[in-house]
Structures are given as structure tokens and as C-alpha cells.
């Protein structure tokens, strides 16, 4: 027996109402995507640099609960780690956050994050051949490359077609910017520099007489053919309590969790997302409830005919799901366009990953089903006795 698609027909019969409903839901979808998008972007931006680490494990000082905390460990531990079985390489990464100030002529000195490593063993994923192609220039003394996504306040011209070198001062000493690379900024860091570890040693005298002996992070690459869990256990045994070992993914999670806990970002954007959700529920409820109110006589007739409440529950939920689907598609499309626009405008990584899309889709379905359930009360109240 074929079924009359009453839910679909009732929904699509009045096109004007359908358009209103779909735009309303699409609007809610865009709101949710934007809020979630910014929330993710802010968290993503803080770990963007970690995502670029070319490694499986990261070694760091046990009390370095956040990347921005500047507690360091002894370089000798790097060598201990490197001698363990299954380890391909362990490379030191030097980072300065607080003590680095970059200044261009006639501009204010501004804090900048400086990253340094052995140029022959680059620790960052060289996605755009930025390190290998500029290695030669970076070997010269007093040189660095600058993140093209750094804020324009620094006064350097970093866009396409800019001419290099551009001269400036880092902590009062001359520095030539010889090129650019791409990383991204976050709340704490408005710009990035990369230089050789030899140059780094020269700029940061406060690190002691042998500045390269204190390492910020150790990036560990392992043999992909071997069991990572076992390698990790061996490393732990060898290094003891002097250094923490985290997989790159664990470090990303830890970092995001920290920002989530210690800042109101999570709360603000969750409230924003909820607002979108509530707006969606209200719009969707309005549409479903009017659709029911306009056809109350017909529904009462169905009741008189012997259609059960369960049928009406199914009918309404079916309609809710159709509405969710119809509203989600344009909403997600528009959001994608807005993400591209936002990303280029704010230099924040606006990413639309599958799991994030699924979360919003689920929220949309939940939103429509919830309003459907609210509207159902109207349907249950339909009194067939009033028909005679």
C-alpha cells in the first residue's frame, strides 16, 4: 500500500509559507555556523602553530601547562630521547613570546613571537616550500622571515609583490626581514618570526651564556612502521619526570581545553549558538503551528476517522525533518561563503570540517523536531466534537 505523502504535501502546498520557513531556518543555521565557526576559529588559531609541527610527539617541561608559559628544559634530554629505539629524530624548537619586540623605523616596538630551529632540520611542515626556498637567505646573520598574516601595525609590507629585505629592529638590534611564510595569528600573538637558531641565540641574551642549551619544545619523529604506544612508553621510561611527552593531537586538545576553561570564549559563543537555536525553534514553531491552526478542521476530521495521536506525532516529526533539511542546505551553503569571507577578512582559520557540519545539522534537526513537539500540543487539542 502506497502512502499519501501528507507531511510533504502540506509543507510544500503553500509555497510562500515554505519559503518563509526555509529562510527562517536557514537564518538560524547561518547564525549557528557563524557562532561555532568563530569559536572554533579562535581555538584553532591558538593551536595553528602546533598543527604545523612536523612530528608525532612533543617534549616539553612538565610545568609548561600552556604553550605560552616559558619554562624550558635542558637540551641534553633531547639527545637522550634521540637515542631511544624507534626514534627517527628529535629536534629542538626555540620560542620567545614575552621578551621579543619588533620595531620598524618610526613605529612603536610591538611584541612578536619568534620561532627558531636548525635550518637543516626544519621542524615545521613546509607546505608551501617556504622554508626550503628561503634557507639560504636565513643563514645570513640578523635575518628572519615574517608571517604574512601578522598584523599590519608592525609596519612591514608583507603582501604579494612586496620587496625584501625590509629593515627593522628586534630588541634593539638590527634585523632584516628577508621574506615571508604563512602561519596565522591568535589572541596572544599578533605576529610571528622565524629565524635560524644561531641568529636566535644572538638576539636573546637573557637566556644565558649558552642560550641554545635551554629548549622550549622537542619535536619527536618516530618510525611509522613501529608501534607508537611502545615507543612512547620507552621514551617515558628514559626521560622520567624531567620532561612531559604528549602526542601532537593531545597537545592540541590540551591547549584548546585550556583556552576554553580559562577564557569566556566557549561561553560567549555557546550562548550565541543557543541564540541561533532558539531563533530557529521560534521560527520553525511559528510555521508549524500556523500550518496546524490553518488546517485544524482537517486534522480533527482525521481524528474522527480514527487516526491516532501517534500518526500525528509521526506526521509532525516528518515535517520537522523535511524543514530541517530544506533549511540546512541553503544555510550551510551561505555559511560556507561567509566563512571564506571571514577567513580572508580576519586571518582566522574558519574551517568547515565534516564533524562541525554534522554538529550543526544535528542541532538543526533537533531545533525543528523540538518546535514540532511544541506545535503538536495544538494538534492534540483539535476537538473533532466541534466539527458537527
Amino acid at each position, binding site marked *: *500500500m*502506497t*502512502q*499519501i505523502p*501528507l507531511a510533504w*504535501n*502540506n509543507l*510544500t*502546498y503553500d509555497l510562500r509559507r515554505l519559503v518563509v520557513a526555509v529562510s527562517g531556518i536557514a537564518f538560524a543555521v547561518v547564525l549557528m555556523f557563524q557562532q561555532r565557526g568563530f569559536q572554533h576559529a579562535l581555538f584553532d588559531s591558538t593551536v595553528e602553530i602546533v598543527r604545523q609541527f612536523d612530528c608525532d610527539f612533543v617534549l616539553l617541561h612538565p610545568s609548561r601547562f600552556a604553550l605560552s608559559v616559558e619554562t624550558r628544559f635542558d637540551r641534553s634530554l633531547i639527545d637522550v630521547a634521540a637515542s631511544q629505539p624507534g626514534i627517527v629524530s628529535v629536534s629542538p624548537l626555540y620560542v620567545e613570546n614575552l621578551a621579543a619586540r619588533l620595531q620598524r623605523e618610526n613605529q612603536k616596538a610591538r611584541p612578536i613571537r619568534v620561532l627558531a630551529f636548525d635550518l637543516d632540520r626544519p621542524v615545521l611542515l613546509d607546505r608551501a616550500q617556504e622554508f626550503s626556498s628561503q634557507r639560504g637567505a636565513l643563514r645570513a646573520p640578523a635575518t628572519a622571515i615574517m608571517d604574512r598574516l601578522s598584523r599590519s601595525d608592525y609596519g612591514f609590507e608583507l603582501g604579494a609583490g612586496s620587496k625584501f629585505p625590509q629593515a627593522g629592529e628586534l630588541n634593539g638590534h638590527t634585523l632584516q626581514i628577508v621574506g615571508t611564510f604563512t602561519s596565522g595569528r591568535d589572541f596572544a600573538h599578533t605576529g610571528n618570526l622565524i629565524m635560524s637558531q644561531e641568529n636566535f641565540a644572538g638576539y636573546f641574551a637573557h637566556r644565558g651564556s649558552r642560550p641554545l642549551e635551554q629548549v622550549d619544545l622537542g619535536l619527536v619523529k618516530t618510525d611509522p612502521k613501529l608501534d607508537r604506544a611502545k615507543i612512547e612508553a620507552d621514551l617515558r621510561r628514559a626521560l622520567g619526570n624531567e620532561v612531559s611527552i604528549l602526542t601532537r593531537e593531545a597537545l592540541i586538545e590540551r591547549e584548546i581545553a585550556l583556552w576554553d576553561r580559562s577564557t569566556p570564549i566557549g561561553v560567549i559563543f555557546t550562548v550565541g549558538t543557543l541564540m541561533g537555536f532558539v531563533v530557529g525553534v521560534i521560527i520553525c514553531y511559528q510555521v508549524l503551528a500556523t500550518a496546524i491552526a490553518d*488546517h485544524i*478542521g*482537517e486534522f*480533527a*476530521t*482525521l*481524528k*474522527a*476517522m*480514527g*487516526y*491516532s495521536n501517534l500518526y500525528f506525532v509521526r506526521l509532525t516529526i516528518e515535517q520537522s525533518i523535511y524543514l530541517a533539511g530544506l533549511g540546512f542546505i541553503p544555510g550551510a551553503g551561505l555559511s560556507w561563503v561567509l566563512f571564506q569571507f571571514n577567513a580572508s577578512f580576519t586571518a582566522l582559520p574558519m574551517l568547515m570540517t565534516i564533524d562541525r557540519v554534522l554538529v550543526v545539522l544535528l542541532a538543526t534537526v533537533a531545533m525543528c523536531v523540538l518546535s514540532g513537539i511544541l506545535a503538536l500540543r495544538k494538534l492534540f487539542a483539535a*476537538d*473533532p*466534537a466541534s*466539527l*458537527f
Partner: protein
Amino acid sequence: MNTELSDQQLDELLATWPTDNVSLSIDADHVNHFYGTGEMRKQVLFDNVLKVRPGEIVIMTGPSGSGKTTLLTLIGTLRSVQEGSLKVLGQELLGITPTATTELRKRIGFIFQAHNLFESLTAFQNVRMATELLGIPDEVANPKIEATLQRLGLGARIHYRPKALSGGQKQRVAVARGLIHEPGLILADEPTAALDEKSGREVVTIFQELAQQKKCTIVIVTHDNRILDVADRIVSMVDGRIVTNSLIRRNELLSQFLTQIELFRVLNTTALSKIADRFDLRKFESGSEIIRQGSVGREFYVIGAGQVVIEIDGRQVNTLAQGSFFGEMALIHDQPRNATVRALSPVSCFVLDKDDFQKVVQSSSSFEEELRRAIFARL
């Protein structure tokens, strides 16, 4: 009314009295109903008694506010029974569970005055909502829906949406939806009000067919006197009370039967239909005693079918057949029965009780005269 009553009509007449093995479609027993609570509580139905057999067409009339709609919603399970007993299609409605209500509703067809068709569905699909609920397979339901809509004059517009249909056409679709699944009971509210003479007639013809062939009981609330002729029973209500509950069709047939008897021919139509309403039917097996000599006489008998023999003191004095009457002597003279009457074959008798019989005698001197003449002739 003077036309001869055919055998078929006589059978129909005899069948209009309920026998024990026929369960009633509607059996309302002392139903009271109230609206409001506390001080606002107002009684709208008073002691309603209504018994309707399967296949009867009942027309309910009465001014608005007379309670007929309330009674109809009670019968249709759309309102809860508060007091009394109401059985519909064998199911007691007093204290019925919601699940049983939903199940029972599937066996009732509703035709509302407002057509209440889904604008988003075609005429065909709207009717399909009724067959789909009952799980009637496509190959059975679809041709039937088409044929019914065709018959109701929607031929070319079967697959049109209500927007493209006239008021009368929408009403006919609603009618089709109410009866397509051949429910045991159809409740219709002014089903012909929006229809022209021809399609109104078609609707009631379909009602009659369902009533006769499928023993479907049909209750119609209407003011449309064009369709009064299809009624087996007319129930009229005033102020929450059933004031008339007469079996039109039975009375008509019985009057027709009675006019074939010399005795009743002297009565005018009104008087005849009045006593027709008072007759009961009683059946006797072959050989059984109908009245006994010496017993107290309480009833007057007219033989509807079969043969009886009259015995006085154990001696057969006469036999009587269809159209004859007996039992009048004891009633007129207030004496014990002067003879025994025994059935020679299965016998059906129309029976009038003493009071009613005496009322007829008193009301019409010519009837009394005719009765004496008949008694005299018998001697």
C-alpha cells in the same frame, strides 16, 4: 397506499422488528448529558432512548439547540458519555478507553457539513486517507475510489485539488471519504445541503445501497426534506428529549398491509399510521399455542404470515390465514378468552395491546361498527 403489498415488501416489514440474534447498531439507554460544571452545569440531553438496527437509515431533525448534534457526537465517540449506557456497533461507550475509541472510530464514517478536505491533497488522495488508515490494499481501494467519485459526478476532476472544485464537488468528495470504507455506521451532518437535486439524490441512493447491501446503519441530521423519503426512522428532538421516534418505513408498510384488511379500511390515513406505530410483532413456532381458552385477554392479533387454527373446547372450529385477526372478543367484552388459537405453521402476528386497541375502538365509531360486522360474519 392502496397498492397491493408484495411478498417482498411483506418480508421487509416482518424484518423490521428486531430479533434477539441481531445486535443493534446503536443502543442508547437513558442517556443524559451535561455541559459545564458546578453552577454552570446545564443538562442538554434528557433520558434519551434510541435503538437502531443494522441497515436502518435514521433521519434526525429538531431545532438547533435541541441536542441532536450532542447525541450525534456521543454516538460518534467524539464526546464522552456521562450518564446512561450507549452501545455503538456492540461497543459500550460509557468509560471506553482511548485506544478502543480510536479503533471504533475506524468503523464509523463521518460526513461533516464543513467538507474539511486537505488543500494539499487531490480529491482522490483525500478519499484515500480513509482507506489507507484501514490498510485496504491499493488494488482494492483505488478502483473503488475512482468508481465512487465517478458516480458522484467528479469524473474529470478526480485528481484536482479542492481549490479547483466547487462547493458541491467538495461536499461530494467528503461524502465519498465518509463511506468509501463501508463502515458499519455512517454519521452525516447535512450531507446534501450544498448539493443540487440530482447529486443529492445520488448521495442518498448510495446510502440506501450501503444500508441494504452492507447493513450499514446511517444517521443523517438534516433539514433537507427532499431526502426524507429514504428514512426508515425519523427521530425528532426538542429541548434534549426525543419527542418522536417513529419507524416511517415500517409504519408505511404496515399501514399498507392493514388497509388490505376490511376492518382497517374505515380508518383514515392519520389514524392508521397512529395505530401502525403501536403494533408489535410476535413470532410463533408451528404447533405452539398463541392464546388459550379461559385465560385473560390482553392483546389483539393480526396475522402477518402463516396459518392458525381456532379450537373451542378442544374442537377445531376454524382456520385463519394472513390478513385475518383474532383476540378482539375478550378485549371488547372484558371476558376470558373464548377459544384457543394454535399456530399451524410458523406464524408472525402483528400485536396490539388492550389499551391501544380500545383507544382505536373508542376513537372511531365506524371502526367499531365494522368490527361488530366482522364478528357477526364470523358467527
